[in-house]
């Protein structure tokens, strides 16, 4: 009897996990199959490989300047990620290594901004960008994302594991503080940077609401905006939409598979 219940529960476990894994992956398969089918086959739920792939790519390329849009996304994501990592690692290091009463207050204030919903920032930010003449430029997308409380928090938590002996030895050797940071901290914390890179890159790549507001001309738009506008047409060409969705998913999927370990480590590292 005991063996029976154990077998049953293990059958249930595998069946349940199997179904969950299938449901999780299925939309990706649907996306790839969809790219080979025409719009009508897609919205009538055809599963299978069709022959419309070339037509779909053509329709997508006819609707938007694909290389430009892809380049816009890559450029924005890389620049914001690089700047975010520089600013946040400096701050995380500074808050952890040079502790003082006033800096601790600033830090707590920064953590409080984690709770500020973007909806409450977007109107003032839009007006500010208008005054700065940055509407419809990529800087308008990049600037507000650089100061990220979450990434600062992440770097401060990770800095706790940075051995203070290294710092003390370098000070005895006469290195300035910025040299210690640049020559010792940065190389030692490589894996922290890698994990933060993935998180910030993905967030920036997926950013939708803010670019939707500030990027208005077609030459400035990102792939995310293009997918959205293709799909919200009155009669969307779902074949072209699928091709665009693949293009929007590819970079983050690639980053994930190449750096899977750092990714999971990076996501969970900050809460240990």
């Amino acid at each position, binding site marked *: 009897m005991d063996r029976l219940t154990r077998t049953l529960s293990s059958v249930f*476990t*595998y069946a349940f*996990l199997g179904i*969950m894994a299938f449901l*999780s*992956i299925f*939309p*990706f398969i*649907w996306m790839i199959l*969809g790219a080979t089918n025409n719009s009508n086959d897609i*919205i*009538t*739920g055809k599963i299978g490989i069709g022959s419309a792939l070339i037509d779909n790519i053509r329709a997508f390329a006819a609707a938007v300047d694909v290389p430009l849009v892809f380049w816009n996304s890559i450029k924005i994501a890389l620049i914001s990620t690089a700047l975010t990592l*520089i600013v*946040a690692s*400096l*701050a995380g*290091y*500074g*808050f952890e*290594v*040079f*502790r*003082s009463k006033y*800096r601790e207050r600033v830090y707590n*204030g920064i953590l409080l*901004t984690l*709770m*500020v*919903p*973007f*909806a*409450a*920032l*977007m*109107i*003032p*930010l*839009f007006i*500010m960008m208008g005054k700065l003449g940055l509407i419809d430029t990529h800087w308008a997308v990049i600037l*507000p994302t*650089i*100061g990220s409380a979450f990434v600062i928090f992440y770097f401060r938590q990770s800095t706790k594991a940075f051995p203070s002996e290294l710092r003390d030895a370098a000070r005895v050797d006469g290195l300035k*503080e910025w040299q210690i*940071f640049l020559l010792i901290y940065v190389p030692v914390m490589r894996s922290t940077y890698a994990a933060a890179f993935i998180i910030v890159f*993905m967030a920036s790549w997926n950013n*939708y*609401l803010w670019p939707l507001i500030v990027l208005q001309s077609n030459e400035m738009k990102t792939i*995310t905006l293009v*997918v*959205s506008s293709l799909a*919200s*047409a*009155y009669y969307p060409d779902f074949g072209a939409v699928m091709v665009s*969705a693949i293009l929007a*998913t590819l970079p*983050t*999927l690639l980053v*994930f598979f190449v750096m899977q370990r750092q990714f999971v480590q990076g996501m969970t590292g900050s809460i*240990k």
Partner: protein
Amino acid sequence: MASANRSLNRYFDINGWFFVAPAALLIGVFMVYPILYSLWMSFQTGKGMMTQFGGLANIRRLFDDPMFMLALYNTMIFFIVQVPVMLTLALFLASLLDNPNLKFRGLIRTAIFLPCVSSLVGYAVLFKSMFVQDGLINSTLLALHITSQPIPWMTDPFWARVLIIIAITWRWTGYNMIFFLAALQNIDKSIYEASRIDGVPSWGRFFYLTVPMLKPVILFTTVTSTIGTLQLFDEVRNIMTSDAGSAAGPSNSALTLSVYIYNLTFKFVPSFGYAATVSYVIVLAVALLAVIQFYALREKD
């Protein structure tokens, strides 16, 4: 000696501010200033750039605005239903995957995690294509005899909300599961041995041993999911609206506060002051819920 000490302190302090300054400056300009600006704006009335001080007029307007009430109601429904469903599922999956003897463990974990690597807008669009009236989901449900009629995902208010909840749950369950899994793997397994010897059934072990030890992670995932759900925008806009209109789902059944703020600012004649007031409703809701969740889940010393 005292002066040497003081100059060392000064050196320390200057360096401290040097490292922290860029971040503090950016957050000051792009977070703190805008949030205060929008507080000030919430007391302004008028259209476009022609505004004047309106006192509490915007707050009164909230209560007379059925559209705002609907957006608030929808957002709260999404929050109350979706967050517990998703976190329970994530915790359940994590506890199944915490078993080191499980076959294909890494593969299953990666599969369930994969949705949160997908493009936000991309997945919303995929869901839109799967849930259309004669689409994949309905034809599958009909073929399996789960329903006898196609489900009106896009045209019925109730089902439109269900669709949004299914979509967000698909996207974020694996993300939360990873946090639970990491926390479970940090638990010292020997405490389970003791309770097994004492004859505690496995569900009892789960509720009385595992869940209390996971409280910090549950708090973390609850607060981040709450913040995410209260700001829901991408999915609603990409599954439920078209470029031409401003309605979010059938009879605005999926209209959320963020979508409403967007409409007030960029779709209708801009009413910045009132939109800022609505945005402060989200600020207050997030703050209130975070405090409640913090006290409900805090460690009892």
